[in-house]
């Protein structure tokens, strides 16, 4: 399976600021996803990061709040914009390959917004 790293691993941010989270994979992957895990909750898919085109967002998530980039097949970023305390969550990226079913997850970024 792919080795996935995320930066930063955790951060504490002030209300109204933005944070960009990076996801790096050690091999080329077809699919990349971003999830949010709110405290004590399960995972919710934010969007599918598409290489070379705009991300595909799930219901309830919008590009202005969560802009995503995916410049190549090994790297993606998620920005959490204009943060509020409600954005305090763990953000995880995951990867998969077309034709294979499973996803592999990064270690997550723990975000606290004050």
């Amino acid at each position, binding site marked *: *399976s792919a080795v*996935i790293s995320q930066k930063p691993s955790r951060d504490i941010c002030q209300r109204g600021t933005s944070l960009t989270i990076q996801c790096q994979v050690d091999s080329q992957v077809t*699919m990349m*996803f971003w999830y949010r895990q709110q405290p004590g*909750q*399960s*995972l*919710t*898919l934010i969007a*599918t990061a598409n290489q070379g085109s705009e991300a595909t967002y799930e219901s309830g998530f919008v590009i202005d709040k969560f802009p995503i980039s995916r410049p190549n097949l090994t790297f993606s970023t998620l920005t959490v914009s204009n943060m509020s305390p409600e954005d305090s969550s763990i953000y*995880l990226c*995951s990867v*998969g390959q*077309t034709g294979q*079913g*499973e*996803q*592999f*997850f*990064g*270690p*997550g970024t*723990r975000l606290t917004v004050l």
Partner: protein
Amino acid sequence: AQSVTQPDIHITVSEGASLELRCNYSYGATPYLFWYVQSPGQGLQLLLKYFSGDTLVQGIKGFEAEFKRSQSSFNLRKPSVHWSDAAEYFCALREGSGTYKYIFGTGTRLKVLA
């Protein structure tokens, strides 16, 4: 609508005892099913997966799961729990071929007593 239900929010077992974590799904066709484990402060690790074929699947760390179509279940089992198994366990469903999006259950937190 597709859904995944994990009826048990918390489970406590003694070390060495057997374990069964329940997962029920709602989906119109045969789903792709997964179990993931999340240790504190960590990302998600894939334990096992079911796509088709043999309904009893073996995974890592001594875990197995059985797919029962008649009961819409995919329960995770381990014959003898170790203290290091204490973690959160997530069942996930991927809609059939053509999409790679997951639906996660709410998770079951396992506590292991020495």
